[in-house]
């Protein structure tokens, strides 16, 4: 498909218009950012996007390779050269259309995907020792341009087959599934437990990284494609899987996410002011608790520690800073090198004045007579041999501890799968860890009509991997339903 596109006259013309040498000599664009001192006190988006000039120039860097390896790095198989070359020739709306052929959420992916580990890691420039084409920035540019132009394209739906299918959970996995199934002509209903659509995109990722209004525009596009959304409905509780079958649903995709936050089970963890990153971010993002008009309260700690080194920890610590923390700290038991957070997030956090207490691990919390946390006791660590995950495991340095004053602690040490949905489907196979077991190629569970993907299968991953699962499940379910019809 990519090769057919590539032989189109305009593409050939573009390739001929500039020598590869000239293209590779262009320096990679830098993302425009809001000033760190200003942004660390508000919730404005940090990355400002590229200007038209910047995007046009960056698109020139792409060599429109005969074998576009970047596409292998994309879990949702975006036709990367086609959209980039459309930017180069100034057809920004065409570029956006290309993105939507395979991705239900291009403006989201352009912001939160770890491109450096995916498409960009496979770019030809890397092999030549140069920085990759900024595919992620260009993706965001095209999606934003389309949205701001008001000429939002809705993918065409060839014919409606009227077959009802359900997505459980409206996070990235469920939305990607819904988009693909709608494009295949299915009658899709997305069931969401919370009162807002978007899952982790709404309750988890903060405004300064992914504004809610951008998520809403992408959801609106799915609505226009005919996807129905039902909030405040928990499949397995409000309505059972059997009842859905009785109502004529032929297939179901479970993308219910990673629910339960992990705690460390250390002394003082139930003190007031100690909470999970999920709780903190849900209060601020989903419930808008920092807004005085919101009925939901949230602490605005002055000395805040976040335990953990992942993207969620970075989101939480930067949120705490924005809500007025004088001291906002990351406490991580390994060194910065092992941190699972994206490099960009760590960089942004540092610019915003976040302190990094690496090689430190909390061992207990102390509180006052009202039960509010006042101090954390940290154990100093050093790195030992690599463990099962390949990361060097941290070892406590005997006797080396430090007591630090805190008025809030946010625990961000991972999540476990939410048992709510799996437990309520009789006979569904789950692993010892509680994740739903699927066939990796089809995302099909042991119950043929039920497919699953995202964190409920992976235990805790990224938006784009969840979307990839949703797409894979849609393709496989389509095939399964066609077969069972015959």
């Amino acid at each position, binding site marked *: 498909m990519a090769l057919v596109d590539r032989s189109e006259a305009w593409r050939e013309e573009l390739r001929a218009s500039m020598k590869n040498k000239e293209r590779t000599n262009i320096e990679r664009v830098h993302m425009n950012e809001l000033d760190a001192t200003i942004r660390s006190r508000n919730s404005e988006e940090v990355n400002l996007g590229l200007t038209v000039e910047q995007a046009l120039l960056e698109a020139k860097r792409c060599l429109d390779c005969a074998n576009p390896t970047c596409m292998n790095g994309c879990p949702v198989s975006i036709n990367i050269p086609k959209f980039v070359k459309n930017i180069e020739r100034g057809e920004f709306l065409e570029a956006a259309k290309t993105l939507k052929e395979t991705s239900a959420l291009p403006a989201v992916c352009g912001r939160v995907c770890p491109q450096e580990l995916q498409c960009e890691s496979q770019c030809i420039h890397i092999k030549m020792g140069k920085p990759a084409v900024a595919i992620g920035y260009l993706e965001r540019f095209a999606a934003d341009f389309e949205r701001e132009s008001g000429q939002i394209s809705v993918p065409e739906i060839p014919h409606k087959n009227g077959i009802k299918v359900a997505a459980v959970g409206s996070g990235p996995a469920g939305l990607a599934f819904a988009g693909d199934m709608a494009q295949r002509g299915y009658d899709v209903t997305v069931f969401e*437990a*919370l009162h807002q659509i978007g899952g982790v995109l709404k309750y988890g990722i903060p405004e300064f990284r992914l504004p809610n209004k951008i998520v809403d525009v992408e959801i609106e596009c799915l609505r226009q494609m005919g996807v129905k959304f039902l909030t405040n409905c*928990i499949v397995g*509780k*409000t309505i059972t899987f059997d009842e859905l079958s009785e109502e004529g649903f032929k297939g179901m995709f479970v993308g219910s996410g990673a629910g*339960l936050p992990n705690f460390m089970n250390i002394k003082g963890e139930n003190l007031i002011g100690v*909470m999970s990153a999920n709780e903190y971010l849900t209060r601020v993002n989903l419930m808008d608790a920092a807004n005085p008009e919101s*009925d939901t309260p949230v602490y605005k700690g002055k000395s805040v520690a976040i335990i953990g080194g992942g993207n969620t920890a970075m989101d939480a610590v930067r949120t705490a800073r924005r809500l007025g923390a004088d001291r906002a700290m990351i406490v991580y038991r390994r060194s910065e090198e092992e941190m699972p957070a994206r490099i960009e997030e760590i960089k942004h956090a540092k610019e915003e004045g976040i302190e990094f207490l690496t090689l430190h691990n909390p061992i207990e919390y102390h509180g006052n007579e*009202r*039960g509010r946390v006042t101090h954390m006791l940290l154990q100093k660590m050093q790195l030992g041999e690599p463990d099962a995950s390949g990361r060097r495991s941290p070892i406590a340095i005997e006797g080396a501890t430090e007591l630090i004053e805190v008025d809030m602690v946010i625990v961000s040490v991972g999540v476990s799968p939410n048992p709510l949905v799996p437990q309520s489907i009789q006979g569904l196979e789950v692993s010892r860890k509680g994740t739903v077991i699927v066939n990796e190629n089809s995302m099909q569970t042991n119950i043929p009509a039920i497919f699953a993907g995202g964190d409920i299968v992976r235990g805790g991953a990224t938006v784009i991997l969840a979307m990839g699962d949703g797409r894979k499940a849609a393709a496989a379910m389509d095939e399964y339903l066609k077969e069972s019809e015959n």
Partner: protein
Amino acid sequence: MNKIISKEHFSANVVKLEVEAPMIAKSRRAGHFVLVKVGEKGERIPLTITSSDLEKGTITLVIQKMGVSSTKICNLNEGDYITDLVGPLGKATHIEKFGTVVCAGGGVGLAPLLPIVEALKKAGNRVITVLAARTKDLIILEDQLRKHSDEIVIMTDDGSYGNKGLVTNGVENIINREKVDLCVTIGPAVMMKFVSLLTKKYEVPTLCSLNTIMVDGTGMCGACRVTVGGKTKFVCVDGPEFDAHQVDFDEMLMRLNAYKDEETESMTNLKK
């Protein structure tokens, strides 16, 4: 959006709402709760389902004005809509024939006690219900509870109705009088703590239903965590019912006050 079909005042601060929710009415069991949010900027708070009507497709909620969010719900009228309502949540009460069961409820806790009393009676238990409140006017659902109980004991702090004394006095009299196989207690955390201490002394197995602070109510946030038997449990997905003798009530009481300052401030604003 769920429509309020009828509203009844039990007392100045306690209101009964019958709300349209056909799917929940069908799937709910004794012990289940719902999360309710009023207004776009509203807070999500848990409320136990008191009863349901399958024909009308409604559920009944009993709410006491405590803070901003419960006051907003109580101020809604017949014909108004609840912005968001989701459920049924939590684990349903484990019902079987235990023998003689004492159900001890205090104040607004009598509302969540009603479906359990009903289910226990239906399962063939001898049910003795102890209703407790500060004063006569605060005793709610007496007729309905009486209907499903073999015996009713009423306790008021001031002696204005039934016997003068605390809920624990009522429970202790029964335990001294006859063999009790199970005690179920629902009410303010302090009340449950003392009922639990009492029944522990007499070695009567006891269930309590906890009402803690929640945000999502589906296990996602952990705001509702309590210590049960030395382990951290989430009230929303592991509960809301637990073995009362294992619950760390003092920690729970402390955590219930987590947002007391914020709550006081917003109540003052609401009154303005």
